[in-house]
C-alpha cells in the first residue's frame, strides 16, 4: 500500500511510512483557536454587537437629522420619543446622535489605549526576557514601583500633566496597564524560555531578533492577547471615569463618561440622560468581556469542559 512515487527512492529505514492514507491537514494553533472561538456563541454575539456598534457609530451620524452638537432650545430635556429616540439633554441635543458619536471615542480609545499599552509592554517584556539575569532583577524592581501606583491614579496624574486631548488620554490610560503585560509575558517567557526549540534556534545561528520575534513571541503572546482583549473593557470604563471627573475627553465632545457627568445633576428629573449613556458603556464592555472570555476558553480549552 506504499505510495508508488516513493518507491524509486526506497530506503532501508522507510518501513515506518506505511499506509499513510490520512490526508495531513494544515491547522496552525491560531486557526484552531479561531475555530474554537467561532464555535462559542456568546463570544460571537459579543463580537457581532461590538462590530455593529462600531459600524453604526461610524456611519450612523451621516444619516441622522440632528448634528452632534446641534442645540435645539425648544427641545430641551425631552423624554424618549419617535422624534428623539433617546430623548434630549439640557441643551436640547439629541442623546441618540451623541451616543453614536461617543461610541467612536469609547471604542477607539479603548482599543488604541489597550494596543498602545500592549506594544510598550511587549517590547519591554521581550527585551527583558531576552537579556534576563541581573537586568531582569533591576527591571522587576522598577516594575514594582511602577505597579505600586494604582493604574487609574497614574492615569489621573498623567492626564493632569499632559492636559486633555485624545492622544494624551490614550497615553494616560495605557501606561497603567504596562506592568501587568510585562509580568504576564515574563511569566510565560520563564516557562517557555527553557524550551528546547529556543536552544535549537541558537544552534542554527538564528539572530537574537529572529529568536525573539519568530520563536519566542508567538509562543508567549496568547495570554497577553486575552488580557488585552479584556482590558479594552477596563480602559473604556476608565476613560469614562476620567471624563466624568473632568479629565480626559472634554465637553462638548460627546464622550459617554462626559455625557454622564453633564447629566448627573438632572438624574432625578430626566433619568434618560443618565440611563442611555450608562447602558451604552455597560453593553460595550459586556460584549468585549464576552469576547475575551471566549478567547480565553479557546486558547486554554481545559477550563471549559
Amino acid at each position: 500500500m506504499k505510495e508508488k512515487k516513493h518507491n524509486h527512492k526506497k530506503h532501508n529505514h522507510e518501513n515506518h511510512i506505511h499506509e499513510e492514507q490520512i490526508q495531513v491537514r494544515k491547522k496552525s494553533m491560531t486557526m484552531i483557536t479561531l475555530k474554537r472561538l467561532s464555535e462559542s456563541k456568546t463570544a460571537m454575539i459579543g463580537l457581532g454587537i461590538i462590530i455593529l456598534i462600531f459600524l453604526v457609530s461610524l456611519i450612523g451620524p451621516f444619516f441622522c437629522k440632528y448634528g452632534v452638537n446641534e442645540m435645539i432650545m425648544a427641545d430641551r430635556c425631552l423624554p424618549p420619543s419617535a422624534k428623539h429616540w433617546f430623548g434630549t439633554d439640557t441643551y436640547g441635543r439629541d442623546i441618540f446622535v451623541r451616543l453614536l458619536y461617543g461610541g467612536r471615542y469609547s471604542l477607539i480609545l479603548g482599543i488604541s489605549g489597550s494596543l498602545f499599552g500592549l506594544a510598550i509592554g511587549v517590547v519591554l517584556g521581550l527585551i527583558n526576557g531576552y537579556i534576563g539575569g541581573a537586568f531582569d532583577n533591576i527591571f522587576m524592581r522598577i516594575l514594582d514601583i511602577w505597579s505600586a501606583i494604582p493604574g487609574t491614579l497614574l492615569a489621573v496624574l498623567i492626564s493632569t500633566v499632559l492636559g486633555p486631548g485624545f492622544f494624551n488620554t490614550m497615553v494616560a490610560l495605557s501606561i497603567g496597564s504596562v506592568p501587568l503585560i510585562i509580568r504576564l509575558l515574563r511569566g510565560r517567557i520563564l516557562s517557555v524560555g527553557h524550551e528546547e526549540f529556543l536552544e535549537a534556534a541558537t544552534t542554527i545561528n538564528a539572530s537574537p531578533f529572529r529568536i525573539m520575534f519568530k520563536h519566542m513571541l508567538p509562543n508567549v503572546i496568547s495570554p497577553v492577547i486575552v488580557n488585552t482583549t479584556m482590558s479594552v473593557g477596563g480602559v473604556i470604563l476608565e476613560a469614562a471615569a476620567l471624563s466624568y471627573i473632568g479629565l480626559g475627553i472634554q465637553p462638548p465632545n460627546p464622550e459617554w463618561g462626559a455625557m454622564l457627568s453633564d447629566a448627573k445633576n438632572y438624574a432625578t428629573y430626566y433619568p434618560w440622560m443618565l440611563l442611555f449613556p450608562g447602558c451604552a458603556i455597560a453593553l460595550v464592555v459586556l460584549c468585549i468581556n464576552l469576547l475575551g472570555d471566549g478567547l480565553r476558553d479557546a486558547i486554554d480549552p481545559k477550563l471549559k469542559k
Partner: protein
Amino acid sequence: MKAGTNRMGKYILNRLLWMIFVLVGTAIVIFTIMYFIPKDIAKVLLGSSATQAELASLRERLGLNDPYIVQLLRYLKNVFTKFDLGKSYIYNVPVMQELLSRIPRTFFIGCSVILFDSLLGIPLGLMAGLNQNKWQDALCMVLALIFVSVPNFWLALQLVDIFAVKLHWLPAFGIGGIKYYIMPVFAAFVSGVATNARQMRSSLLDVTRADYITSARAKGVSERNVVLKHMLPNALIPVVTGLGVGLGKSIAGSVIIETVFTIPGVGMYLLTGINNADYPVVQGSIIILSFFSALVMLLLDIVYAQVDPRIKAQYSGRMHGVTK
C-alpha cells in the same frame, strides 16, 4: 515550630525593607511626573496680571528655580523625615494636616471594599467552580460579567436616585454615621466581587485537574474534604495575588466614588487639587494613596506567605537542593 516563626520574621522584615524601597521609588516617580508639568506654576497662581518681579519672587519662594535634583531631594527629605508634603498653594495649609483628617474616611472605604470583595467573591467563585456547567455556575458568571461591565460611578448615581432621592432610605451624600457609607462601599465593591469570583472559579478549575487531588481521592478523602482541605487552599493562592490588583483599582476608584457622594476624603481632595492646579495637593494625595496601596500589598504578601509555605521557605534556605 520556632524555626517557623523565625522564618516568618525574616520574611516580614524583608517585605518591610522592600516596601520602604517602593515608597521612595513611588515618591520619586510621582514627583518627577509632576515636575514636568508644562505650565508655569507661578503664572497659574498669580494669574495673568502678575508682574515679572512678582512671578520671580514667587518662584524663588517656592524653590522652583532650583535644579530638579535639589528639588527632588528636598521633597524626599521633607516627606520621609518630617512627614511634610508641602503646603497647599491655594489655602496655604500643610497638605499633611488636611490629609490626616481625610485619610480615615478613604481608608475605611478602601478596606471595606477589599473585605467585601473577598468575603463575597471567593464563595461565589467557589460555588460556580464546584458546579461547573450547572445553573449555579451560569448564574454566578452572568452576574459577574454584568457587574464587571457596569461603570461604578454610574451605578452609584443610579443608587442615589433610587435609595436616596426616591425611597429616602439612605443619605445621598456627605459624611456622618455608618449609613452614609453603605452606598459608596456597595458601588465600589461590586466589580471587585465579580473579578474575584471569576478568578476564584478559574483557579479552582485549574486545581481540580491537579494530580494531588486525584491522590487525595485515592486516599479515601470525602468529596467535601477534598474541596475544603486540598482544593481550596491551593486555589486561593492566585486569588490572593489577584486581590492586590483589585486593591489598586478600588483605591483609585475612591476618587470617583468620593466625587459622586461628596465624601471629603483623599480622593475629593485630589480632585479639588487638580481643578485648582494646586500641585502640592495633587502630589501629596497621590503619594498617600500609593502608600496605602503599598501597605495593603504588604499585608497581602504576609497572608500569601501563610497560604503558600514555599514563599516563607525561601527565607530559611531549606529548599531541596539548596540544603547545607
